[in-house]
């Protein structure tokens, strides 16, 4: 995969690919695990060259790109750009949020509807646990260590809307007291804000999602100070370059 990165970089150095923005924005490719994101200018030349590079790389390494599985996401493109994209790229044009490394990416904050899949993923876990056979203490452990930690990965990268946090709280509370995903007030013996405090403050030690989100995202500020040269140091300030598009490749 390193080779692909170098090929793309080489192409942009030789000015075969047009720069994304007037500012020095060199990050044209992002490779982690099995997901690839390419940032391109939506011109026929650029797309042709990129497809050639991918073809070359595929022939040499055997890692061929399946364009049917890839998708294009236009960022600030006009109708003309989109027409070019449709002509020269055989993959479908998708809309944000797109899933990259399991995180729904979007230039804007996620809306509640867009975050619904995350909530459902957690709800799906509940039926497989034999909740009615567990004690409240056992369910408390499941809530504390499984349900809560499922959102940590997402919360590290994204700010979830408050409605979604509320939905998470509802699920966790109902599961703790009743073992179901919806329980009404009567079953809940102690008010939820008290339950989710740390144990030494009289709670069960279940995390408060808002505070947890803050402390998880604070790490980005820390990393900015500690390792200012890494790509993530520019993370919060970076804005999407006008008139570019993302080519998401699923391998």
């Amino acid at each position, binding site marked *: 995969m390193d080779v692909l990165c170098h090929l793309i970089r080489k192409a942009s150095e030789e000015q075969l690919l047009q720069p994304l923005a007037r500012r020095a924005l060199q990050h044209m490719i992002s490779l982690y695990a099995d997901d690839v994101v390419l940032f391109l200018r939506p011109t026929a030349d650029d797309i042709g060259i990129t497809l050639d590079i991918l073809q070359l790389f595929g022939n040499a390494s055997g890692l061929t790109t399946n364009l049917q599985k890839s998708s294009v996401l236009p960022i600030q493109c006009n109708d003309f750009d989109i027409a070019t994209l449709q002509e020269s790229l055989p993959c479908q044009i998708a809309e944000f949020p797109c899933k990259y490394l399991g995180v729904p990416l979007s230039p804007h904050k996620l809306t509640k509807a867009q975050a619904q899949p995350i909530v459902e993923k957690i709800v799906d876990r509940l039926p497989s646990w034999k909740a009615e056979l567990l004690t409240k203490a056992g369910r408390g452990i499941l809530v504390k260590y499984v349900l809560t930690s499922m959102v940590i990965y997402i919360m590290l990268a994204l700010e979830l809307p408050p409605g979604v946090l509320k939905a998470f709280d509802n699920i966790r509370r109902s599961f703790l007291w009743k073992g179901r995903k919806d329980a009404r007030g009567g079953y809940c013996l*102690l008010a939820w804000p008290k339950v989710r405090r740390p*144990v030494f403050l009289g709670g069960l030690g279940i995390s408060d999602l808002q505070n947890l989100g803050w*402390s998880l995202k604070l790490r980005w500020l820390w990393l900015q100070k500690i390792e200012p040269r890494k790509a993530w140091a520019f993370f919060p300030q970076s804005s999407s370059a006008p008139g570019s598009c993302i080519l998401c490749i699923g391998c």
Partner: protein
Amino acid sequence: MPHLPHLYGAIATRARKRTVYAAITGGQWISDIKGALSLQVLIEYLQLWELLSNVELQPELEDVHVWKFTNSGVYSTKSAYEVLFIGAIQFDPWERIWKSWAPGKCKFFLWLVAHNRCWTTDRLAKRGLNNPSKCPLCDQVDETIDHLLVSCVFTRQFWFNMLQ
């Protein structure tokens, strides 16, 4: 570093942007203090003077960032999360409940007891659910959680035998 709000207030706005290095060299921070000095400012001035008297800068060393809420000085999410609860009221029996070797369900029960959240008749009666209100063990006193677990005659005998 202690808080020195009065002294900070007496410093000219422009001088607040000085780096530590610029402020310490040649005692620059002293001449930055402007205006009439109140008693508070003087006290804080002396405090800071005492603190800085032993400080010596080492210009050849690189600056490092330190996160002051962990011992190692490296950021951790856990420490940041706990910082958000600073100043909250402590729950005294937490160690006796959660650090014991009792099974989880017993600890959970004791936690509910500590919060007075068990459905004893006194709490049921408040909600209009009428059960026989006397303690089923001694039939003399109203059933409350304190009575059931501590002060009932039967319970006291039980604890006595247990702890013998």
